[in-house]
């Protein structure tokens, strides 16, 4: 047991190429998924947050429900679409990093959109009358609300990133955990643990934990800075 920790430590500090290849792919896949989910989810959440239209209540319930979608279900849905016989089979995406990015995007888009909606709705209650007085257009309103909620939205994005990088169910189904190609931290931990090769699993687990800590510490710093300027 301690042997595994010692070996894990030497892998991390020894800059083991296999280890860092896996970490690199994990970060790349989850960051790209976060960017795509943000580009769609931030404006979508803001729009739903301040607009009034028929079916809005139902849409919000749906968005909130999708936040809790099990990763394996997302993986399965995407698998059905991109597998050879699926509607998108011709794109040959199965078992590629692109498929993993798609899976994580599907997983965290509802998180980004639903949490953004909540943040923006609270803010808009305050701005509503002033914005109508100024004659702010819908597009300008979306942008202004996203800019003014920026510090709260950092937390939203970190929540999305945390979910993406930590999930295993979706990426293992559509990525396949192929060595040097689609193996990320979580799938590697799953495999190495089942093989009994604990050193790599523990090393990756430590990295994943530290990453999570670092991300949350960053969020706290950002929020503290915002508070001091009365921007929250």
């Amino acid at each position, binding site marked *: 047991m301690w042997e595994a920790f010692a070996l894990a430590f030497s892998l991390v500090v020894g800059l083991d190429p296999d280890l860092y290849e896996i970490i690199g792919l994990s970060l790349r896949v989850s960051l790209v998924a976060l960017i795509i989910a943000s580009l769609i989810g931030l404006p979508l959440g803001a729009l739903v947050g301040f607009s009034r239209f028929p079916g809005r209540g139902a849409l919000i319930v749906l968005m909130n429900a999708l936040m809790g979608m099990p990763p394996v279900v997302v993986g399965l849905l995407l698998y059905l679409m991109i597998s050879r016989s699926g509607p998108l089979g011709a794109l040959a995406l199965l078992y590629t990093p692109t498929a993993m990015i798609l899976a994580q995007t599907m997983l965290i888009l509802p998180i980004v959109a639903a949490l953004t909606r909540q943040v923006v709705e609270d803010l808009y209650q305050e701005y509503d009358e*002033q914005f109508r*007085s100024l004659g702010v257009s819908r597009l300008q309103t979306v942008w202004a609300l996203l800019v003014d909620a920026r510090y709260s939205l950092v937390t939203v994005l970190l929540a999305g990133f945390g979910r993406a990088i930590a999930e295993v169910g979706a990426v293992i189904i559509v990525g396949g955990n192929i060595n040097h190609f689609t193996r990320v931290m979580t799938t590697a931990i799953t495999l190495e643990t089942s093989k009994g090769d604990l050193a790599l699993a523990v090393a990756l687990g430590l990295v994943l934990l530290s990453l999570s800590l670092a991300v949350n510490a960053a969020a706290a710093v950002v929020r503290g800075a915002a508070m001091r300027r009365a921007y929250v």
Partner: protein
Amino acid sequence: MSSPSRTARAEAEPSEAAPSPATPFQATPSHATEAGATASRPSTSHPAASAPLLPLVTERLTLAINDKALLRGVNLTIDDPGITVIMGPNGAGKSLMLRVLHGLLLPTTGVVTWAGRPPDDDVRHRQAMVFQRPVLLRRSARANLRFAQDVVGERDDARTDALLDAVRLGDRAESPARKLSGGEQQRLSLARALATRPDVLFLDEATASLDPYSTRIIEEIVRETAGRGTKVIFVTHNLHQAERLADDVVFLSRGKVAEHTAASQFFAQPSSSAANAYVTGRLDED
């Protein structure tokens, strides 16, 4: 007085011309005038500004919220420039009426017209309002003015600086707007309203909770703004303020116009019993 040279300098180097906050207000009686003149140019830069907005006419205006009649048949014609003060006791419907005139609330029945036109987008964009409680963006003071200018599509940095100077916030331009004091926030709200070069400026109890310094700055700028041709409609329940500012007074009582007269006449002898009671401090009996 070195007004001309100061004005010229304010044009060239607005930030350096910022008056010190410690400057005693009484010592610079012409200051608001010059700062205001620097701050504003003729509002004719609006494409459609040549079309007049006055007279503002309301016909049989009613407003009911949750079946409660709050405005009960307001007939009003405002056709003179200058400052119209809307007065009346609490609950008379002053703020609601201002919101209906500005287009924030739709009347239950009746219409508002500006020079015979319904309040379309062009009419709306030529109005601005200062609310009782300032709502500022979570950005710097300067960015708040820029935002308003961007909304009307007229970014003008020199004007932004001049406006900040006019409301004595030249040295706070980069401060987070929501870190400013209550009086500073309201002055910034006024600057933001003016940043859009409105032809009509509404103020809803804008100085109700401010100290005398901020109140005086706001009153001076409001007077300046009206002097340059912007129509000002100012809601207050402060008699002294009304007397200082008003060209004409609309007195509202229980959702109706009790009277609309020239200020001199109003303060000499209000004709309606409701206004008379208010001015003399008696309880309104009717």
